[in-house]
């Protein structure tokens, strides 16, 4: 069996005096999209931030492409080809849309073909190219946050709740974009609350509960098992809209 692109073993994270992750273990296979699901407060965001080195793992091991990244600094982790889209979006509000993307393109000016591909999916970014990002709507900020992560090819994208607060039309564009990315150059690990979105895109799923991964498997099997969803997510399928 091929080695996973990302692997977490026994990862524990404390934030202040709070013990948030209690030994997280899961793998992300190369070339697909893994959904990280779970109730609010299960530790999903903490897991992504720990992978990025923004919060330090107190114990355990995180490996990316066979390399131990547990104690690496955030910029070094990013330079390995991992991009992160936080739940807060964290766009630079005082910078223009253009400046946000220019900054994210580390290797030089953004590639025009790549930009055209992004504009085709997130047209608003082209329209508001020279506008300060702080003036964009919530949905447009989310588009910019995702565009910033994919402005250059990255091996792994960590995306925290990309559909939060988005209009259905924008979600459809995001689904298209993620599908093309996972079929092409990138592997995606996406935290998501919208189960309809998760089911459409996910190849694999890891479900977190109380700082641990309670289930890992294929999305198809998980989507077919209502009882397991009820048990792990606490909600029926019809409420995951």
């Amino acid at each position: 069996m091929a080695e996973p692109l990302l692997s977490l073993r026994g990862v524990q994270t404390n934030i202040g005096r709070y013990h948030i992750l209690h030994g997280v273990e899961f793998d992300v296979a190369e070339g697909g999209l893994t959904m990280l699901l779970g109730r609010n407060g299960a530790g999903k965001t903490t897991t992504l931030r720990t992978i990025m080195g923004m919060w330090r793992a107190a114990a355990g091991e995180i490996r990316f492409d066979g390399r131990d990244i547990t104690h690496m600094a955030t910029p070094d982790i990013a330079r390995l080809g991992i991009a992160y889209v936080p739940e807060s979006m964290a766009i630079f509000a005082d910078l223009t849309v253009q400046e946000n993307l220019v900054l994210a393109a580390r290797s030089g000016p953004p590639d025009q073909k790549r930009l055209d591909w992004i504009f085709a999916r997130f047209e608003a970014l082209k329209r508001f190219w020279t506008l300060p990002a702080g003036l964009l709507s919530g949905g447009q900020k989310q588009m910019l946050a995702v565009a910033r992560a994919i402005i250059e090819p990255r091996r792994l994208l960590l995306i925290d709740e990309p559909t939060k607060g988005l209009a259905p039309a924008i979600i459809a564009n995001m689904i298209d974009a993620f599908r093309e990315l996972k079929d092409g150059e990138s592997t995606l690990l996406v935290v998501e609350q919208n189960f309809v979105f998760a089911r459409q895109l996910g190849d694999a799923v890891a479900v977190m509960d109380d700082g641990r991964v309670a289930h890992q498997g294929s999305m198809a099997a998980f989507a077919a098992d209502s009882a397991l969803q009820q048990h792990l997510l606490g909600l029926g399928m019809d409420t995951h809209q």
Partner: protein
Amino acid sequence: MKRDWLPLLLIPALMIGALPLIGSPASWVTLTVAGLAMGLMIFIMASGLTLTFGLMDVLNFGHGAFIAVGAFVAASVMLALAPWMTADSIWLNLAAIGPAVLAAMVVSGVLGLGFERIIVRPVYGQHLKQILVTTGGLIVAEQLLKVIWGPDQITLSRPTALRGAFLFGDVAIEKYRVLAVVVGLVVFAALALTLNRTRLGLLIRAGVENGEMVEALGYRIRRLFVGVFVVGSALAGLGGAMWGLYQETVTAAIGAQVAVLVFIVIIIGGLGSVGGCFVGALLVGLTANYIGFLAPKVALGSNILLMALVLLWRPQGLYPVAKR
């Protein structure tokens, strides 16, 4: 973007408002140029401090040490080159001032590098400790200045070319103040160009807003911070050298004295905002000179009052930086 011109309009509003109170146009011009010169010197000293706070949330109460060191180093060089300072040739005057200012910037910059490593770095993210330890750094620096240069004040004379005033009818404008305005504007233009037209500036602006996200994009914000800290210290050294020549005396307490104005300026401007720092510095300089002329007894408190009024209007300062 719809620019926020309102704070900028305060400057001409203050100037125009002061004219009828002062009465004499000649005095008004003199005071206005003096206010602009003072403000721009404070801006030079404050610009680095506001950026270091914005980038790493570092409250450096020891910034005055770089100002004082700059003043002392420049004074030493100028005293060593006294014959050139007193010569009638502007070129010889410049040949004395140039190395003095350069030495002040280099020594303050190097001191800033050491200060960041030894004093600031261990207390990242701990505001109370930052205040205590950097204030301690300032006290130690002041005492060391007394050890090295002695406890007495050093009297400085401006170079021949910068003594006296330009006369336009009844209006007298000190030559040195004109130079201070020109240098201040050049520094502001250089900073504005760097921040708005270069990738480095883009990184600094983004880092001031959300350093953690800049790191997540693959940039090492701490290196950037050290660079900004050193440049800010060097600018403080430049400002200290200019302030010493402005006052024509240098004492070990010069840094702590000006640092009060520097902090007022960066708070008025909005912590982390260079544009706000520029506007705030001009307002402080003008207010100090106008009030000093109109009501000398309240001059000392005028800048505190200005800060209170600005914060009542805009609690985050004139140009608040969007923080994460």
